[in-house]
């Protein structure tokens, strides 16, 4: 296993120490239970926005803590949902009296742990609302299943919702906007290589030299299908078509287009994929009004990418453009 780590047990703790040392102006880290909060929080009268999930997806979520985005993030063990104790402590820490929104990615573990935390928070008299992201079109949706995974939309939602909360929107309004972003967003990912979970010590899956996994999850979960490696143009088509058809997106739509690297993908390839994406969207009469290109929701060192599209209106565009100042995303400040 080739990793810059001291031991599988200490990965999360050591990285948190590094983050705390790197950004004392933006964030503070608490341990046992582990969570990251804004250095300048809690802010009275502001809805606290928190998220969390397994580690290994950095910069999500810890890198998004700061002005105009998250008030706190709860990092679990690698690829493992954090525990309710973390979420409860974070909920209390960011509570400025206006309630707290939990942003939860739709994985059974995340949902159950956040549910327990919300129950505990409510028992302590904090108003807690939750939104569950489930944007991954690679997964068949149905009332009788665990439903779709939360992936790329989560990043965009945290930014947009964070801006609304920063502007002191009340909890119900923040929750409405969160649900709107989730409803208007879709994603799909692919992998060229597997990731290796530190405590597993070997690749989660084996992918022959000439094959790729289409519809892969962000935990190295196998995807929809395994196919021969194709050109960037063809891969962009394979990811974008299911996204466009699912919502569906229509000619005349304005979208926020997000090309995300899975952690082991060089930036040159992400810009190249973005180029293919723009060609496809232009061909369908869809305008890319805003974009984000980079590795923001990752899967350790997995090579591959995901594409996320969110339909924009003036409200969402304005919130996207609002200033943000976090370790991983910053503009306007």
């Amino acid at each position, binding site marked *: 296993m080739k990793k810059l780590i001291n031991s599988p047990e200490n990965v999360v703790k050591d990285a948190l120490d590094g983050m705390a040392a790197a950004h004392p102006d933006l964030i503070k880290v608490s341990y046992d239970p582990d969570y990251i909060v804004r250095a300048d929080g809690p802010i009275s009268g502001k809805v606290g926005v928190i998220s969390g999930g397994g580690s290994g997806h950095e910069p999500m979520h810890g890198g998004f803590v700061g002005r105009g985005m998250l008030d706190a993030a709860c990092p679990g063990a690698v690829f493992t949902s954090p525990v309710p104790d973390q979420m409860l402590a974070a909920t209390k820490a960011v509570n400025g009296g206006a309630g707290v929104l939990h942003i939860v990615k739709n994985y*059974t573990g995340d949902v159950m742990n956040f549910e327990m935390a919300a129950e505990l928070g409510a028992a302590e008299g904090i108003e807690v609302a939750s939104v569950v992201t489930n944007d991954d079109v690679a997964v068949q949706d149905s009332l009788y299943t665990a439903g779709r995974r939360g992936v790329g939309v989560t990043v965009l939602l945290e930014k947009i919702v964070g801006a609304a909360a920063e502007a002191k929107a009340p909890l119900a309004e923040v929750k409405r906007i969160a649900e709107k972003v989730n409803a208007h967003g879709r994603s799909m990912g692919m992998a060229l290589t597997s990731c290796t979970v530190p405590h597993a010590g070997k690749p989660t899956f084996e992918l022959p030299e000439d094959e790729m996994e289409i519809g892969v999850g962000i935990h190295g979960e196998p995807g929809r299908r395994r196919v021969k490696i194709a050109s960037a143009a063809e891969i962009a088509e394979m990811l974008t078509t299911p996204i466009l058809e699912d919502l569906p997106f229509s000619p005349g739509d304005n979208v926020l287009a997000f090309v995300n690297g899975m952690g082991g993908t060089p930036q040159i390839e992400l810009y190249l994929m973005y180029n293919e994406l723009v060609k496809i969207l232009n061909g369908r009469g869809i305008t890319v009004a805003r974009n984000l290109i980079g590795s923001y929701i990752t899967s350790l060192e997995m090579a591959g990418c995901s594409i996320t599209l969110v339909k924009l209106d003036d409200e969402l565009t304005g919130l996207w453009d609002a200033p943000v100042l976090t370790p991983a995303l910053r503009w306007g400040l």
Partner: protein
Amino acid sequence: MNITAEHVIKFVERVAATVKEQRDYLTDLDSAIGDADHGANLDRGFSAVLTKLPTVADKDIGSILKTVGTTLVSTVGGASGPLYGTAYLRAGMVMGDRFEMSADDLVAALEAALEGIIARGKAQRGEKTMVDAIGPGIDALKAARAAGEELLPALRQAVAATEVGMLATTPMLATKGRASYLGDRSIGHQDPGATSAFLMAKAMLAVIEEP
């Protein structure tokens, strides 16, 4: 024969040891249809449980099981943390301040545990989860008791049924948990959670069988 608080302590210790021993096996199962952490999750949780156990060494069964449950909730995370955590908590609530339990108490505790799992996870049988091992195990335990079997033989039948239930997850299509994302590709792999549930059942039997 009754189950004592001492038995329960030994059971928990044995589960912790088994989980550590089978950690890589459980993780391998989870690699195939999940995210390669089930072994590490349970090992982290039961290691924490072991450090807490001395504080309840001479307490009633309810206190022991509730401590296991809260510790699992606070240290495991993922899907299995809330599920197993809730299961142990609910079983502990049923047992209350008793220091001994009968075979019928065990049935009641296990039923409460399973209800807790189902309430949290909303999985029915046949969805390729731990429920598919635990459910048939409890059924067999109840059937054996109804047929007049003593604790030990009834438990043997329950463990056998748990194993059958675990093996039966292999051909199933997952519709709950992380494996559901695979659709048809989940077929042909044994469920990790059903496997850890079987390991727990085996540990219970081994403790009761001990001279």
